[in-house]
């Protein structure tokens, strides 16, 4: 049976691949959304920090013999720390200015980080082996699904839903959300708002690093792995609605699927279809699909 000349088997396979790619988009845009939604910071350095996460995993293996499972914890912590420092030293000074300065600053940070890594490691990829427990694959009939890629989907769904739950349904989350609306009032209640903001930025960055560790075994660990990804992730956040956590998650996975299908019917357009969708969404619903206008 075929759909538009493509056998359904192939289509299901591409759908699954699309979900896997979508998982990365979802995790990255989640971090970005948390940062923008709660802090009003446009974090252009997100792609570079994702790359750092992958590199920390690589170093952990090379220098300390620490495997994948350890890196899942270490990389977010290390890169999250970097994020904390970034926020404290630089981003803090820009809160009273136009948002766009935050964008320009983080853009500069991204260039510096990517440049330093490129200088050290060139831009061809470094190898990172798939952990032994996740090797091999399942024969699903319509395609051969590597175990690792299945793990990616499951794990990122878990992380995304947990984050959403924490922010939208717990007390901590409500403090965060309140602090964005009216920081002075929340501070008056005795909550250390600046510290919360710093920690939130670190958390968003840690999510990016986690995505980097997930990516290390299947995409090459290379200094430019986040460079072209960042504008796609931005598009996802904008489409989902800047500041809407659920919007980013849903849009991330959906985009992966849309891209997957595009790769079957018109592969060359797969990098661009997201921007077409973003343009359309921005013109019809400027606040995004799940966004709330101020």
């Amino acid at each position, binding site marked *: 049976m075929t759909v538009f000349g493509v056998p359904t088997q192939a289509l299901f396979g591409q759908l699954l691949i699309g979900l896997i790619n979508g998982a990365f988009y979802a995790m990255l845009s989640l971090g970005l959304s948390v940062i923008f939604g709660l802090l009003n910071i446009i974090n252009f350095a997100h792609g570079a920090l994702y790359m750092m996460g992958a590199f920390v995993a690589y170093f952990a293996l090379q220098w300390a013999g620490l495997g994948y499972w350890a890196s899942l914890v270490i990389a977010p912590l290390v890169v999250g720390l970097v994020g904390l420092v970034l926020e404290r030293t630089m981003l803090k000074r820009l809160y009273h200015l136009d948002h766009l300065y935050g964008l320009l600053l983080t853009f500069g940070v991204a260039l510096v980080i990517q440049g330093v890594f490129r200088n050290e490691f060139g831009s061809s990829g470094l190898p990172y082996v798939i952990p032994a427990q996740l090797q091999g694959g399942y024969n699903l009939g319509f395609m051969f699904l590597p175990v690792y890629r299945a793990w990616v989907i499951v794990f990122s769904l878990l992380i995304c839903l947990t984050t959403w739950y924490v922010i939208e349904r717990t007390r901590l989350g409500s403090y965060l959300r309140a602090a964005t609306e009216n920081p002075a009032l929340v501070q008056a209640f005795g909550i250390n708002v600046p510290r919360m903001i710093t920690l939130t930025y670190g958390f968003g960055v840690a999510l990016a690093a986690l995505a980097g560790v997930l990516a290390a075994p299947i995409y090459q660990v290379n200094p430019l792995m986040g460079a072209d990804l960042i504008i796609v992730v931005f598009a996802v956040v904008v489409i989902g609605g800047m500041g809407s956590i659920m919007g980013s998650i849903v849009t991330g996975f959906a985009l992966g699927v849309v891209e997957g299908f595009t790769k079957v019917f018109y592969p060359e357009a797969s990098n661009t279809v997201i*921007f077409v969708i973003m343009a359309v969404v921005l013109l019809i619903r400027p606040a995004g699909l799940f966004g709330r206008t101020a």
Partner: protein
Amino acid sequence: MSTVTAKPGAAALPAAELAASRIPAHQVVAFGIMTGLLVVAPFVIYPVFLMKALCFALFACAFNLLIGYVGLLSFGHAAFLGSAGYASAHSAKVWGFPPELAILFGTVVAAVLGIAIGAVTIRSRGIYFANITLAFAQMIFFFSLQAKFTGGEDGIQAVPRGTFLGLLDLRQMYVLYFVVLAIFLLGFLVVYRAIHSPFGQVLKAVRENEPRAVSLGYRAEHYKLIAFVLSATLSGLAGGTKAIVFQLASLTDVHWTMSGEVVLMTLLGGLGTVFGPVVGAFILIALENYLAQLGAWVTIVQGAIFIVCVLTFRRGVVGELGRLLRKPL
């Protein structure tokens, strides 16, 4: 939850100091100095490097018109630079246009694109405007990658330089240089005239308080759109000239990192100043040239400049100079 406009009390992007319609004397002097230096420079410095800097200086001036005087950050200006480059290259190489017509054709293509994209995007503001201009620029990038005539990763190569107006042989280095200089000065003066005019005054009013300008009877959207199209057109002029000078039109000029570079040039030189973009462009191109041997150091330095400029040097080189002299430059 998230706001579209800046928070109340947030400092906006630097406002350009617009003098009265009479041209201030110190700016005439500055213009004279700039032109004088540019006339003498090719005999001392490698002219091809200077021509590259001039094309980018024009590009930055065009970009500055939008961000400095209208307050809109476009993250997709590379679309105009690159499309004009492809148009000029193709018309010169395949259709045999003489260089002046090829460059004109490129400029027209950029203008048309400017109208098309501007009409759709001009209603947005702030980060949304940046995003939607980026989206359209990416679509143009994709089109450039796929269309047969652009040559994909290889670009359009071996573009003939030809004879300008049937008189000036552009294969001679110095002749080419002075033609490019003339084009740059023309574009620069167009931008200057646009700012120091009633049109410029309305733009200022719109940027400072749009509802008020509207209530006074000015159709703000129209003014913003005209400024956008003007910015796109002059970017196209820069792109078309660049294609003829380097005899090549490539994907680099439509890639989104090029949009980032022009932001950097303008920021470094001074957002909303008259001469800032020129200075910023020259500094950046010189830096790239100097650091090219050292690989990725170019990106690191560019990033560092962004960071330093945003944190402590927001007025840019010319902005600070203007503040020292207490006269707007």
